[in-house]
């Protein structure tokens, strides 16, 4: 199994930390992982993205330009990465702020209204975990127990009291993701 993922959105949406929690969960499950952020000028305001690879084998290049899954959280990122999804791959997007829907006909497309749901429930801080939950519903590449360990390793100990809230957000994400186009 090798899963190559891009997570892209605005800085501050928790893109990098979502990737880190996913990657750390992979480490805990004894997978090979890599986490490669964009750290360029875009990180100083504007868009942020991270490629995460989780695999059973030694990872060759941590830098990739074709993805099994794209998790997209704003229009710029949709424009940039829709065409980088491998044919037959998966595109997940949050419709918040999206003005041009994805147009690819050869990939699976799901949407997750995570921004709206997180605002409604007053849990905007764990918005990214709602999105992660949606992804894990479709591709359960890491088990629940390892997500818990991934959270423990990713968050400083003083924030461990927030782990249940993060896990709840993941469950909410699993329940609200919906298909747009399934091959």
């Amino acid at each position, binding site marked *: 199994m090798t899963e190559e993922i891009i997570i892209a959105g605005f800085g501050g949406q928790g893109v990098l930390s979502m990737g880190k929690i996913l990657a750390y969960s992979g480490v805990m499950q004894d997978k090979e992982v890599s986490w490669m952020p964009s*750290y*360029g000028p875009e990180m100083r305001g504007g868009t942020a993205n991270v490629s995460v690879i989780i695999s059973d084998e030694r990872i060759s290049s*941590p830098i990739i330009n074709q993805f099994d899954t794209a998790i997209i959280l704003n229009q710029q990122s949709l424009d940039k990465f829709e065409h980088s999804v491998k044919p037959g791959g998966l595109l997940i997007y949050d419709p918040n702020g999206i003005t041009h829907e994805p147009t690819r006909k050869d990939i699976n497309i799901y949407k997750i209204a995570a921004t709206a749901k997180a605002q409604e429930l007053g849990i905007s801080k764990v918005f990214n975990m709602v999105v992660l939950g949606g992804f894990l519903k479709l591709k359960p590449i890491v088990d629940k127990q390892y997500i818990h360990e991934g959270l423990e390793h990713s968050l400083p100990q003083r924030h461990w009291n927030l782990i249940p809230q993060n896990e709840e957000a993941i469950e909410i994400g699993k329940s609200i993701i919906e298909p747009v186009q399934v091959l």
Partner: protein
Amino acid sequence: MARELKLMKGNEAIARAMIASGADGYFGYPITPQSEVMETLMAEKPWETTGMVVLQAESEMASINMVYGGAATGKKVATSSSSPGISLMQEGLTYLAGAEIPCLVVNVMRGGPGLGTIQPSQSDYFQSVKGGGHGDYQLYTLAPASVQEMYDFVFDAWDIAFKYRNPVLILSDGAIGQCMEKLYTRDNVARWTEEERRANAPWATWGKPATRPHNIITSLELDSARQEVFNLKLQKKYAEMKEKEVRYEMLNCEDADYIIVAYGSSSRIAMKAMQMAREKGIKVGLFRLITLFPFPSKQLAEVAKRVKGILCVEMSAGQMIEDVKLATECGVKTEHFGRFGGIIPTPGEVLEALENKIIK
């Protein structure tokens, strides 16, 4: 810290390895994409645990000269920077080499020339292995290609530095520095005691007992004849490194029709390109340089005899390729492929370059 499985950035691995390998001091100045080295050291506060000194200097020139001062006393001292900062250190580096002072310097390369970009590049190869400063000197140069190697090579660097009384350079780039991967940490090595330091660095300036003459640390010699003797001694040392300390990795080279030569993050991309080529039925191997100086010339020449072509992949205009051609005496078709300015080539581009420049 005992042996543990972690997920961390290459830069953080460098910092943690410095603490774990018993470094006595670090002097640095922040620059992207290596700022996490000092950030991690400052957050870890090793001065409260191992006693390691961490200091933000006022410039890179100050950092490298603080390294000179600290390391001249036989302590394990390091600095790190990225390309423009390493350029500022060149004077210090040639003085360190000339005074035969062991130390560790880490360069997390970014695009140049000048201030360039903050994204990954490998265009400091010439500066690293052809003498960025003046005079006939060499830095033992290690090129890590993973976060694990960023960590492990710090431990190896101290061994080489003190064995040969020579500065060691870890030449990395923004991709490996910023990438997070799995890492097994090692058991902490205690900092040398005063007795151990005197035993391991009998040449250093740790105070003159009545039983021996002065230890003098300098790169100045006014007598040309004596300077030549010293130059010959240095060359003998470099020759010994070439003989004994060459490191490289070969993947699928046994049956290869073509090989890619690369180091650092380019070697990771090349590895993926190699896999893609093999899936298409093209027998491609990867010769990964681990030491850039000493260059694995003999070993590469041996492989080159058996192949139809070599593609050199480096994020530069083609620097390493010169040493590849020297090693193989241009005996086989050899071409360069690279991207500039912080653009990282994709595995697909590397495969395409191999097909268009070498196979066709």
